[in-house]
């Protein structure tokens, strides 16, 4: 009798789940990175509001605002073309693991200050999409993290530039 692992392996070998994950992650992160590049100072201000980095010396905050949007775009392109995409998926997972709890904490602070339901908390998280309803953003990030982890553990290499010429 074949177990569920067998079917999961078959599904992974088809390359379809990985391809879907790569396309969604690439589209999301290339778009969000580009939006941040358009307004670098808005992004710098938003990064600062998370209090993840010291303001002095300023190089930490400024370098983050300079590099992070490109990190998203480069990771997105790597996932799209399937070249060194596991490193790209790891980078995306890392960014999500840092910023998702930070968004949650900031949302809880805002809720404590303003009052009302957590589901009504709306602010610009600096993610590149403008002001958003935070619980949907957090849910979206969990979905993206799942896709990034899927890309990390998948054994498939179908439709990847790293697999060209096909081996």
């Amino acid at each position: 009798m074949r177990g569920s692992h067998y079917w999961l392996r078959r599904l992974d070998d088809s390359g379809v789940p990985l391809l879907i994950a790569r396309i969604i992650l690439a589209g999301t992160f290339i778009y969000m990175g580009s939006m941040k590049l358009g307004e670098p100072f808005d992004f710098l201000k938003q990064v600062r509001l998370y209090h993840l980095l010291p303001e002095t010396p300023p190089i930490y905050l400024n370098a983050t605002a300079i590099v992070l949007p490109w990190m998203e775009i480069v990771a997105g392109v790597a996932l799209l073309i399937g070249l060194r995409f596991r490193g790209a998926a790891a980078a995306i997972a890392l960014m999500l693991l840092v910023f998702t709890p930070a968004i949650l904490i900031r949302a809880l602070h805002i809720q404590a200050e303003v009052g009302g339901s957590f589901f009504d908390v709306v602010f610009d998280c600096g993610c590149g999409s403008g002001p958003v309803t935070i619980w949907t953003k957090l849910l979206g990030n969990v979905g993206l993290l799942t896709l990034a982890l899927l890309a990390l553990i998948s054994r498939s290499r179908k439709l990847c530039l790293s697999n060209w010429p096909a081996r």
Partner: protein
Amino acid sequence: MQSTKRALLDLGLLAVLSTAIGFGVNAIRTRGAIKPNYNYFNRAAQAPSRAENGVSPAKANLPFLGQANPPMDEVLPVTQAENKKHLQHDYQEIHFPELVKVFQDPTTAQGLNLFVDARKPDLYEEGHIPGAMQCDPYEPDDALSSIVARANGVERVIVYCGGGDCEDSIFMCRELVDAGLSYDSIFLYPGGWNEWSTNKMPAQAGAEAQ
């Protein structure tokens, strides 16, 4: 194990590539270039505070004008004060009722009160306080020079941004002090454009007249 090692190696490569592209593009872009070593927020080390500058406490030069900003901790509950810490400053504040009087005062028509809009150019063009000059505190450049030249001889330079949690007007005040304007001539309007427009006060649209 091998694949984990490979993924970490690729992650490092991606980080190096992103850093190189990020700093490279930042160095050549004409608009929105971030100066890596410039402190856009905490300027205590770069600009002396009001007290360090040897300036007396904020004093209104007309009876209806504003007072210095009271310490936030004295007027807000602890949690709220913590969240508003970033809005602390030591500039004179001018609030809506006083600002309306200043705006309607003949001295404004005579050009003795200069309004500075610290919001982004697109927001400024959508609507601003009539006669205000626009200057982005993150990229002041030529606009700051024009404001300093225009501020010569004016009684008050009134700085505003969006209002609420917006800090850009505070940073603009710092730029003006750095550029040589006296603390006593600078007034910060914390209500900002939101309060001004909500109260249906006169507005002007379009880019700044050259």
